[in-house]
């Protein structure tokens, strides 16, 4: 039994399930209550669960993320929604200096079981202050787990295990994915927060990606298949800790690796993945590792410039052909 479900609806169902299953769970963030969430993820939950469990906050990321971390320390299981990753920079201090560090600094006496969700990514003409992909800023930090659900099933399934994690979890939802639709099994599949997933099997090269770039990578793979180039597409899913073994196993088979990352190229997650491949599979490689990343500019407002700045299926396919000398 399965139902056509959007990524947004899948997230909402996951939140409802969490609120129903655990009385310690509550949601807080800007406009998550009466308005139903900036991306309508929490729509209806305020009416269903009341203002104590779905709480609107002032426009103060530093304040309400800090409050969420405090609530987690106090025994609650907060889900904190930040409108975009750009705005989350105001809350880097409580996330990096407090949530990520407390277990270590307290010798294991305190844990911070908070889940912080945020939208990321470009493609909707919202310009440079609402469009960036800063996942790697969080993936850099020991002490937090970083998730990037890129499918409807992961949008449905990642929240509950994230709440079970005793340490802080940051979850990135690419804003272009909210309207993505797919069949969702009932009951929903159980997903883990450990493994990368092979979304398409292939033999000619491995395309590694995550989040909003997954649909583009799959589209590129389809184009390439028409020319007889079968690309394997890997969705990282968990950006920290990285499941590099799944990537390496694929690269040992295909001997070529191309990473697609909406983050900027310099010091990107792509840089980390390719460095790991070079370290651990150098003698398996039959071509230099390659990347398709965003251009190194603040994401432009104008549509054509924004499109030009982002990884796209044609750019991915062109780079893949180049790697194959085709």
């Amino acid at each position, binding site marked *: 039994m399965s139902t056509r479900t959007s990524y947004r609806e899948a997230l909402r169902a996951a939140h409802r399930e969490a609120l129903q299953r655990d009385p310690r769970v509550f949601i807080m963030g800007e406009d998550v209550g009466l308005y139903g969430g900036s991306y309508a993820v929490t729509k209806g939950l305020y009416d269903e669960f009341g203002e104590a469990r779905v709480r609107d906050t002032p426009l103060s990321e530093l304040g309400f993320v800090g409050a969420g971390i405090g609530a987690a320390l106090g025994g609650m299981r907060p889900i904190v929604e930040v409108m975009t990753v750009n705005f989350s920079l105001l809350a880097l201090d409580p996330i990096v200096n407090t949530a990520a560090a407390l277990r270590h600094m307290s010798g294991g006496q305190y844990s911070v079981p908070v889940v912080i969700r945020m939208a990321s990514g470009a493609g909707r003409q919202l310009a440079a202050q609402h469009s960036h992909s800063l996942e790697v800023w969080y993936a850099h930090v020991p002490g937090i787990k970083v998730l990037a659900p890129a499918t409807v099933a992961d949008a449905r399934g990642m929240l509950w295990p994230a709440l079970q994690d005793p340490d802080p979890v940051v979850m990135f939802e690419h804003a272009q994915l909210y309207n993505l639709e797919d069949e969702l099994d009932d009951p929903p599949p159980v997903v883990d927060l450990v493994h990368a997933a092979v979304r398409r099997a292939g033999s000619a090269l491995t395309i590694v990606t995550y989040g909003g770039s997954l649909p583009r990578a799959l589209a590129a793979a389809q184009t390439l298949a028409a*020319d007889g180039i079968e690309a394997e597409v890997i969705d990282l899913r968990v950006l920290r800790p990285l499941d590099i073994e799944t990537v390496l196993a694929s690269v040992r088979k295909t*001997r070529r690796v191309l990473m697609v990352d909406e983050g900027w190229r310099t010091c990107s997650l792509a840089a980390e993945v390719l460095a790991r491949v070079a370290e651990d599979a*150098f*003698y*398996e*490689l*039959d*071509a*230099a590792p390659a990347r398709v990343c965003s251009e190194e500019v603040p994401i432009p407002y104008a549509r054509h410039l924004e499109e030009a700045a982002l990884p796209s299926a044609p750019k991915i396919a*062109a780079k893949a*052909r*180049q*790697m*194959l*000398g*085709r």
Partner: protein
Amino acid sequence: MIEFKLPSLGSDMDDGKLIAWHVRPGDAVKKGQVIAVVDTSKAAIDIECWHDGVVHELITELGQTIPVGTVMARLLAPGEAAPVGAAPTSRQRVSPAARQRAAELGLDLAHVVGTGPQGAIGLEDVERAAAPAPKPAASAVSAASTPADRAAEMRKSIAAAMGRSKREIPHYYLSETVPMGRALEWLRTANAQRPVTTRLLPAVLLLKAVALAVRDCPEMNGLFVDGAFTPAAAAHIGVAISLRQGGLAAPALHDAGSKGLDELMRDLADLVKRCRAGSLRSSEMSDPTITVTNLGDQGVESVFGVIYPPQVALVGFGRVTERPWAEAGRVTVMPALTASLSADHRVSDGHRGALFLARLRDLLQRPEEL
């Protein structure tokens, strides 16, 4: 070190696909030498080098599509020494996997031909070299675009250039009836002494007259770039040539003003032939300073064209027809055509345009001086 970049071969060209290199690292090249072939939406174009020098490094790979302005190769200027330690092409590239496999097989990599990016030896190359009965080499020809693709691409690039022209250029239009009696009579006499293969077409007179007329009206002949007009030193006339698969190109007839009619006729025939065969040179695509369209051949009486940016004028010629002609109080029958001018009002005014057309008309009354 000289950077050789993909030139823009017209305002409708954004990128090109490298089909062939005609040079290799170490080759000496001369200014004007064809060093590469690039496929554009219009045709496969021979790309000329703009410098004397020695090829140091080829950067663009075969089959790669690159934007205009991309560095395709680096050249050493005459007398320049190769940078020390930077000899990127001297060492054979071998992928790590290929190197390891070759070691396992005891294969000498010196005898293996690399087919990977930048000529690198890949795993497949090693396996192929080690195989007892070598298979015929896989065809290196990339999947050629179909004529339908080409036509669609050309439509797109014409749309871009003409859309830009009508957005940016405030056109004004003038026309003038040009009596052609003297010119055609002169042509008949001139052709009577020529073998069939070298006979002159009326189009040659028209092109030469345009090239001479712009000498008196330099604001018709040049390019408008970044808000300023630069007159051209010579008249490189873009000749609009319709292509069999649809669409058109307007490559340059270089310095038409200083060529004799016979030379111009040869060059025109050659240009039309190569344009339809899809083998133009890059300078022919990028150099035109004014365009001439001769739709009279198709039977229309007059044509008011759209200027090809960044040029500033386009001259149109209609069909030669016999018309009643009043002159000196008498009516006679006169072969005549309508010459038109589309010009850029940012650069010239109607008054100058009128002088240009009048000059053009007068030149065509003295064919012996063309």
